[in-house]
């Protein structure tokens, strides 16, 4: 499909007709939607912030249907002022909440709802609603989709984005309710926030501020990293061109001098925990958030720059961190990690999972995922990652799941045995839902002659054969030296 189609179609504006007219760089306001050039193409973009620099006024743009990590500051010359600009709906543009008041409200409500379902429990990983990139178009989209009478919707469903049809389905069905309600009560946002406050379980920062990336560059080990999302580092860091993070203790510095001083004193050369896995490629360390509060907070701040769906609202105590490192002559370098609730009411075996950008696309993600499932196998539990997944997370998990299931099914096929979803689930420590969804995604489920069958498409077998030639690395389960940690009632009290 061409980007052009995607560009316009799924992200039709808010429900009500928005006021449209021409604008200039001076009149453009926060909340406006304008056509902005991105990678040589004009895309609709919401203006989230405006700043004046020496070189002129810059606009922080969130591009329609692009992940927020591609948001950027653009100079006014990239904005197409020869096209109409959509103005933010006035009733939603309440001055009291400052800038960028628009229909993001319902989205926040969604988050709140989720948080309320598990009050006080989660520290991370609920998506930051306020931070979500494109609240209005999707929202209205999903709403209208449930009303097929609209011609536009029909067009959509028969259109070129069939996958999108399924997208309205969410794991949490409850989410739809407040959204619909929102349609009729435009002011419910404040009410919703108030409710969350009294409920005491808000996991999201409702401010628009958190939608805007606040750190421009991070010097981390030998790398310069460019953050993707907002992270609540000290506010003074926002003004720095570059911040410095110690590669081993993850301490953060806004200036070079204290960082260099710190480096002279820091003696850490590996994550401050117990090594529970080692092979010639990677090591894993287990770190208790309660014991290593500073280190784990630093890790969370760092990873928040690359994880949208993570909240640092609560402290790190109830989590264990499994940190993957690669060893050089300098020490164990942080490659990625996943966090895991010490006690997960929903049976999640992963809360947040991240491969640092400099190690991405090298197969480390699947090592992390595999390791999380190996731990679940040792625990004798079925595991699943906490939702929502990010786009990258979904792809990584889908890939891992489909590979594992495919290998397993090919074995069954060779032995000419029958399998069942439960058998697959048990063998891989995956939840049956994840198995089923993967089978559906791979289109392997078939109904034939009155019975359900699993059919392995030829293309997948070929693809798998090719992938195997690449000699991927795997975790060797026998090298794991780990027992499921047991926490007493007192250590499980997360409040201080």
């Amino acid at each position, binding site marked *: 499909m061409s980007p052009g189609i995607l560009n316009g179609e799924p992200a039709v504006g808010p429900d009500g007709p928005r006021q449209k007219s021409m604008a200039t760089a001076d009149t453009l306001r926060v909340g406006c939607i304008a056509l902005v050039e991105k990678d040589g193409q004009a895309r609709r973009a919401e203006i989230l912030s405006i700043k004046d620099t020496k070189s002129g006024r810059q606009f922080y743009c969130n591009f329609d249907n692009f992940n927020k*990590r591609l948001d950027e500051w653009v100079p006014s010359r990239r904005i197409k002022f020869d096209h109409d600009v959509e103005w933010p709906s006035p009733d939603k543009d309440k001055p009291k909440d400052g800038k960028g008041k628009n229909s993001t409200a319902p989205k926040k409500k969604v988050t709140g709802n989720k948080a309320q379902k598990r009050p006080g429990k989660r520290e991370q990983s609920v998506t930051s609603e306020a931070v979500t990139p494109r609240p209005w178009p999707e929202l209205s989209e999903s709403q209208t989709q449930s009303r097929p009478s609209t011609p536009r919707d029909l067009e959509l469903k028969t259109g070129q984005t069939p*996958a999108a049809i399924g997208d309205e389905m969410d794991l949490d069905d409850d989410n739809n309710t407040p959204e619909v309600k929102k349609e009729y009560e435009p002011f419910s946002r404040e009410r919703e926030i108030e409710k969350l406050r009294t409920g005491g379980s808000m996991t999201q920062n409702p401010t628009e501020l958190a939608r805007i990336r606040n750190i421009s560059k991070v010097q981390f080990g030998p790398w310069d990293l460019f953050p993707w999302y907002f992270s609540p580092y000290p506010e003074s860091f926002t003004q720095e061109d570059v911040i410095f993070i110690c590669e081993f203790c993850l301490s953060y510095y806004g200036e070079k001098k204290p960082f260099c001083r710190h480096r002279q004193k820091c003696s850490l050369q590996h994550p*401050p925990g117990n090594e529970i896995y080692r092979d010639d490629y990677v090591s894993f360390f287990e770190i208790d958030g309660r014991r290593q509060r500073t280190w784990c907070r*630093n890790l969370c701040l760092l990873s928040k720059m690359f994880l949208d769906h993570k909240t*640092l609202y609560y402290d790190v105590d109830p989590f264990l961190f499994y940190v993957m490192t690669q060893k050089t002559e300098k020490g164990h370098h942080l490659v990625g990690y996943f966090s895991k609730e010490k006690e997960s009411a929903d049976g999640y075996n992963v809360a947040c999972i991240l491969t640092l950008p400099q190690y991405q696309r090298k197969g480390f993600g699947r090592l992390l995922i595999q390791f999380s499932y190996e731990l679940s196998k040792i625990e004798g539990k079925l595991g699943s990652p906490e939702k929502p997944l990010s786009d990258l997370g979904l792809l990584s998990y889908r890939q891992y799941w489909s590979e594992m299931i495919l290998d397993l099914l090919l074995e069954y096929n060779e032995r000419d045995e029958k399998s069942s979803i439960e058998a697959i689930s048990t063998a891989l420590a995956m939840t049956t839902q994840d198995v089923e969804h993967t089978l559906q*995604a791979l289109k392997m489920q078939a109904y034939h002659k009155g019975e*359900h069958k699993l*059919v392995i498409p030829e293309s997948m077998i070929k693809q798998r054969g090719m992938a195997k030639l690449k000699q991927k690395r795997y975790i060797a389960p026998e090298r794991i030296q780990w027992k499921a940690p047991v926490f007493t009632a007192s250590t499980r009290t997360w409040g201080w």
Partner: protein
Amino acid sequence: MTTRKVRYKKLNTKTPLPVLREDQIDPTEYESLTTESQIATGVEQAEENEYHLQAALKSVGASADNEIPVPPPQNSVEANYDELYPTPYIEPRNYIKFSDTVEETIRGSLYDMTAEDEDFLKTYNTKRSAKEKLSEDEFEHFMEVLEDTASEQAPYAAVDNTVVSYDVMYHSMVRRIGSVKLAETHAKPVYEYWKSRRQDNANMSLNPAVKFETHQEHDDMDPYVCFRRREVRQTRKTRARDVQVADKLKKLRRELEDGRQLVVFSRQREFLKRELLKADRLVFEQRAKLKEIKIRLNIKTDDDDLVNTKPQKRPRTEAQQPPRATPHGQVRQGARPDRSMEQVDLPELSHKLAEKENELRHDVEVKVQNHRRWNQNFVDLTADPLPPVQQEKELSFRPAKTTFLMTPPASSASDSMEIDDIAPSTPSAPEKSLAPFVFKGATPEDSDQEEVPSYRRRVGRSGRLWIDRRTTRTKTESSILPHELSSLQSDRWKYDQDDDDDGGPSTYKIDTNSLLQMKFRSTIPPPPALQNRRQGTDPAQLQGYPNRPALPQVQIPSVSSAAPSAPSVPPQAQPVQASSS
């Protein structure tokens, strides 16, 4: 949307599914389930439509690799990595075990000096001699102490702008910086510098730190506030099942506790038993010694010395002592006063029994007297008087005294307390009065009293002496024929048989026209149905035959209810009664 041609069975996760390759099946034959199914991705709803994600999802299974673009990292140009990270790493052979915190791994102070600090230090040091120069490490140490003390003394400095005074700071600096001289030299200027920096920084900590919660109202909206304290974990709402389970657990716990208590107590009991045994043994040994001494001193006693009497009897035996012990005691007391105490301990069984018997007898006697006194001036003139009617015979009539041989004691002489048995066997005075207390009611036997021939002597006119006589003839007045009576007595057990004798209904010869029978028939209880209605006054019950509703058997009560002791008593007791009245 396509409509399904076939209605699918719902897929159970436990259903065994055949696994086939695509080439093992006719492609036209199967319908893929997935054509229109909606797959849950788990991605935030708002992001599912994102262009790059959709492109990537579509390409799964396709050869084209659509990647999601991300801002790429770069090799850092400005930092000299080897300079910043100079320490080579030596890998230990075993898996690393490590629990030091970040703060503990820092060699030196936790304060890291800034460029501003560096400038200050440089200018500061230029004024000083080489000896007095303040090194960077020392400076950081000072700053660390200042910062620490400030956060300790004025944790809300950022809010209320408290500045910790120099005196306080000086003391903690002297205390924590090893060298007093060093502290004295540099404390003041460093403090002043620190103070000015703090003021520039709104009196907040100089090391940039993330925002923690300070004020609930602003914090919720502030995206920079992070790592909040967790709310107290909400206890799950108790469901009925939970309550049930909890109750069960509680009960189990309680029961286990009870069991434990039992064990504890039985343990205690065993200990006490052991103590007791020890004590007993001690007593026995003492007694053995006593025995030895007795033998040595040639005092003869029986083996009672060694018998362990029951302790609770002691007070009684002591009370009894005087009458019992007098015979022997007097002799011995002279010789050995302490031995009399021993005697108290060893009463004889026969004494005990006699004592008991006496008591009993006395008791009975008292009761009899009481009863008699109670009945003294009371004449029961009702139709069927319960207590025996005191015959209003003239006092001067005297029953004829006949001497009978005493009845031998009942063959099954027992210690049973049945008055009937005792009465004949013990001819002592009290027993005599026992007989009248057998309740006889208005029975034929009452007339027995009248049968006693009695005589009266009176002096008539002119000194004539009369002897009046009452003979057994009076019986006729009671309208019971002699032969009937005798038959009454003789066939008293005629109808008796074992309860469980279930031979057919036995027949008894009854003279239906006899007075007795007629009299009895009038007392026959109404039919059971009626009877049930007034259970309280069930005549059968009253008569002591609840199990025998049948007519022939019921007829007995009229006789036997009169007196259970009847068979043995009447003939012999007559003289006794007579004499007492």
